[in-house]
């Protein structure tokens, strides 16, 4: 059993012992969950305290065109009537003059086209905003109700677009909740395990291991192994990527020559003693060339 294998066994043993004490484990996990929950609630409260910035795509809107000539309808009364409809959150008046001046500012609209529009004036309109996140059915019902309001000539609304956005939002929201739950569970288990294991670390043992020269075994394996590179390629599933990786000349980035020179000069034998000779020979056979 080498040091690395022993460490893996030691970790397995620690996990086995941890799970072998369910009461202690549950207590630590519970305490961790309470702490995390409190943190999450505090974060939520802070988030709710600030103004909600709903993305425009999640705010469904409709364009309500008023009927009749200018001056014939009471635009104020119409706006009030529009706001009374359920799920309508806002209504913004867009007068024909304002619309025309906006059109005039568009550079790609030719002066001829604008001249044609003038004798055929635009209608007064309202941009009606619905409650963010409202169900598509509720908004479509509200649109139907808007169409019935007096002096409303037509209502422009794209139900399919909002249905898709809403569906995506719902999916994202549910996936987010699931992901958050999984992350929280992993965090709780991870912190609980760490806390439990931490409580069992014997400082005297750590001091002794340091005294005996224990440390990761990587230092005595300075060669880059051919097997390591092959394993990375074998893990790929994309045939195109595999072809690229197999075609790459790894000698450009992997050079065991320096290590070989140190071995030849007896650097490691001088440092660690003659007992490393067999280890060097074994590892040299596995090195990338």
């Amino acid at each position, binding site marked *: *059993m*080498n*040091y690395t294998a*022993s460490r893996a066994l030691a970790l397995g043993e620690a996990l086995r012992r941890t799970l072998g004490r369910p009461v202690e484990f549950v207590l630590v996990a519970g305490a961790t969950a309470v702490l995390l929950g409190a943190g999450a609630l505090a974060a939520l409260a802070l988030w709710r305290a600030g103004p909600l910035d709903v993305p425009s795509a999640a705010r469904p809107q409709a364009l309500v065109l008023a009927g009749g000539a200018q001056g014939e309808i009471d635009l104020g009364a119409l706006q009030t009537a529009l706001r009374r409809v359920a799920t309508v959150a806002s209504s913004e008046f867009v007068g024909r003059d304002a619309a025309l001046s906006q059109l005039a500012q568009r550079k790609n609209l030719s002066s001829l086209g604008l001249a044609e529009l003038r004798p055929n004036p635009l209608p007064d309109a309202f941009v009606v905003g619905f409650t963010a996140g409202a169900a598509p059915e509720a908004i479509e019902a509200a649109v139907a109700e808007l169409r019935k309001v007096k002096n409303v000539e037509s209502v422009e609304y794209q139900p399919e677009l909002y249905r898709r956005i809403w569906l995506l939002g719902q999916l994202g929201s549910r996936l987010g909740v699931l992901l958050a739950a999984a992350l929280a569970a992993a965090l709780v288990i991870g912190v609980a395990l760490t806390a439990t294991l931490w409580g069992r670390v*014997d400082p*005297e*043992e750590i*001091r*002794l*291991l*340091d*005294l*005996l*020269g*224990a*440390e*990761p*075994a990587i*230092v*005595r394996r300075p060669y880059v192994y051919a097997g390591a590179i092959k394993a990375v390629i074998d893990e790929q599933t994309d045939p195109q990527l595999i072809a690229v990786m197999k075609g790459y000349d790894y000698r450009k980035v992997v050079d065991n020559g320096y290590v070989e020179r140190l071995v030849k000069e007896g650097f490691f034998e*001088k*440092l*660690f*003693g003659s007992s490393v000779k067999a280890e060097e020979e074994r590892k040299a056979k596995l090195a990338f060339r």
Partner: protein
Amino acid sequence: MHLERVEKRYGEFRPALVGLDLSVARGELLLVQGAAASGKSVLLRLLAGLETPSGGVIRIAGENLAGMRPRARAHLRRSMGILPPGGCLLERKSVLENVALAPWVAGAALEEGMRRARAALDLVGLDVARYGTAPCAHLTSGQRQCVALARALVNRPALLLLDDVLSALDETSAARIIGVLDQFSAAGVTVIAALRSAAPSLPMAMWPARARALRLADGRSVA
């Protein structure tokens, strides 16, 4: 091993070691003597690479110890046998487990480590059949010292750094340990053993004549 003008200071306190020059050849048996707080343990800790000197240079096999990376120093310690003051044993672990820990850290197989541990315990005169599975907490201070010494010897080190090596040992056990250290030294292992000069119950005559003495007082080498 060469030490040139080695100093060690801890904060504002008086220096633990001052301007120490020392050369120790392979296979030499060096006895570092001095009263408490004379710098013996500090010297051994510096040689083990557990601390770095505040000044001066320590070279082991031509390598400057201070210039080595911590991982390389850890590897170097694997070729040393270190007996820290008090033994530094794992109280709840058995005698065999304590001794076998050193070969295990050095990468030996578990069975090989146990085999070596039994041999090392035999060498220091502890009855493996009787005490091998006993927790170290149940041992007398003399037996604990033997276990710690066995752990220092078990990896067949090139350098032995032994702090207060004969503490808690009776004359018979001490004579046995001195004999073992003499054997190791004769086989080419460099042995540096710290002894308290305030413990005159074990006379210097017990040590082989070729042993060299280094006397420290207030962190300085004295004649």
